[in-house]
């Protein structure tokens, strides 16, 4: 082992990366470490706990030179991150489900205060029925807070997205939520390429905010804002959010230049001449890819669109891909009670002013962590092929009626 290491260092340059088999949760922790976060404040909750454990360990061993602030709740965790970010440090937290909901007030605060905090949310169903398994209703209920949301498909993507998120957040001064499925990613190990931290430094320079809390140079933050000025602040948030689409694309392209891989804010998969396009997010995407490959082998004109960026919603990019299809099948692992699938709603809204649009089918499946298998996806494909138009606003798949 010693010999091997010596041999490596004898080369002209340090290795650009090393492979390690890690869980999605640890991919989050390594992503934060490689981003050289300076303050971590978090409260443990299944299925996020290992993220915090690992970060605490890394802080304790000195591998990560960050202040780890122990708190009594998620509400306080975000409050600590807000303070840390105002003071000009790179702040990070992670949570899930009930914890995210408890944080809600300060999730608004972080965005309205325009703080580039990054948070990982491990998707877990909201209780009751008390659950630790995945669905997206926790993160999606934070839709309107002004946070960017990026949904991940693999552990590699999780690690890379944490690093990219700081790049995006610090460009537009809005916080970013990195979202990953409970267990399917959080507790599943995959080989992950851990980039050399020097390369990450090249990609992500230290955080230097324009204004920060500084005793030598006093400023005021978060004070009373009368109606004469508050409206303009909200407008500026929307401007920044819209800018977020471009910032995320650029961060992703720059990432490719340094690390040789990227994801896009959306990813069309085998959409050439597709008559039917499935729309997915998170790990359902991987399952669907397999199904698409099988169907393409049988010469079926079917493709897939993965939505990685949900907020800001890249409507124009989405329309560009989907408008060519005859039918679109949106697979939602979430529900807005009284309407239907949330991604489906967004896509329908995106097509609102378009003259030509495909027939959009809204499927709901996998709520409360119910497995979504290739058979589930096949059922969705079969239903979409069989019907010209959706007969009802919600088509339930895998429901025991």
């Amino acid at each position, binding site marked *: 082992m010693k010999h091997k290491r010596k041999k490596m260092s004898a080369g002209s340059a340090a290795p650009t990366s090393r492979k390690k088999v890690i869980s999605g949760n640890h991919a989050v922790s390594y992503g934060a470490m490689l981003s050289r976060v300076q303050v971590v404040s978090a409260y443990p909750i299944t299925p996020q706990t290992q993220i915090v454990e690992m970060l605490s360990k890394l802080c304790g061993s000195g591998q990560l030179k960050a202040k780890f602030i122990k708190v009594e709740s998620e509400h306080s965790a975000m409050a600590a991150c807000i303070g840390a970010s105002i003071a000009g440090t790179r702040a990070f937290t992670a949570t899930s489900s009930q914890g995210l909901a408890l944080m809600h007030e300060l999730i608004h605060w972080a965005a*309205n205060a*325009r*703080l580039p905090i990054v948070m990982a949310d491990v998707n877990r169903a909201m209780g009751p029925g008390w659950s630790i398994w995945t669905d997206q209703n926790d993160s999606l209920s934070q839709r309107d807070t002004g946070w960017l949301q990026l949904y991940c498909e693999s552990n590699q993507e999780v690690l890379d997205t944490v690093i990219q998120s700081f790049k995006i957040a610090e460009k537009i001064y809005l916080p970013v939520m990195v979202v990953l499925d409970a267990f399917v990613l959080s507790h599943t190990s995959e080989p992950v390429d851990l980039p050399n931290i020097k390369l990450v430094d090249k990609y992500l320079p230290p955080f230097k905010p324009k*204004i920060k809390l500084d005793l030598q140079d*006093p400023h*005021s*933050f978060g004070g009373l804002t009368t109606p*004469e000025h508050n409206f303009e*602040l909200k407008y*500026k948030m929307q401007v920044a959010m819209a800018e977020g689409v471009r910032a995320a694309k650029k961060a992703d392209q720059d990432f490719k230049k340094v690390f040789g891989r990227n994801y896009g804010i959306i990813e069309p998969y085998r959409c050439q001449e597709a008559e039917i396009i499935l729309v997915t997010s998170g790990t359902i995407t991987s399952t669907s890819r397999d199904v698409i490959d099988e169907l393409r082998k049988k010469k079926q004109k079917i493709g897939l669109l993965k939505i990685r960026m949900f907020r800001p919603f890249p409507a124009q990019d989405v329309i560009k891909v989907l408008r060519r299809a005859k039918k679109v099948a949106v697979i939602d692992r979430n529900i807005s009670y009284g309407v239907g699938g949330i991604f489906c709603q967004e896509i329908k809204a995106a097509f609102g002013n378009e003259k030509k649009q495909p027939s959009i089918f809204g499927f709901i499946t996998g709520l409360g962590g119910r497995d979504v298998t290739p058979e589930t996806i096949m059922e969705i494909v079969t239903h979409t092929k069989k019907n010209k138009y959706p007969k009802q606003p919600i088509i339930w798949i895998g429901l025991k009626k």
Partner: protein
Amino acid sequence: MKKLKSAREIPIGTAIEDAGCSREYHTGSWRNFRPIHDKEKCVNCLTCWIYCPDGCVQVKDGKVVEFDLKYCKGCGICAEECPAKGKAITMVPEEKKE
């Protein structure tokens, strides 16, 4: 009234770049009741000066001189706390002031 700032001019996230800018905000316009000072009754204990949340009690040579009406919101804490016999400060509705 000073000119309101446009979206372009306002710093993001409610950050206020210059310290002490509350001086520019004349909270006296909020006032419904005005404090009236009775020099005869006043014992110059400066209790009002301590309690005033906006620092509006003007003191010279250890004596209460006047109230700074540019910032006085008319909260009446000074009148409430005044320990002088018969109260040296009374709150008078703005419309009834002399």
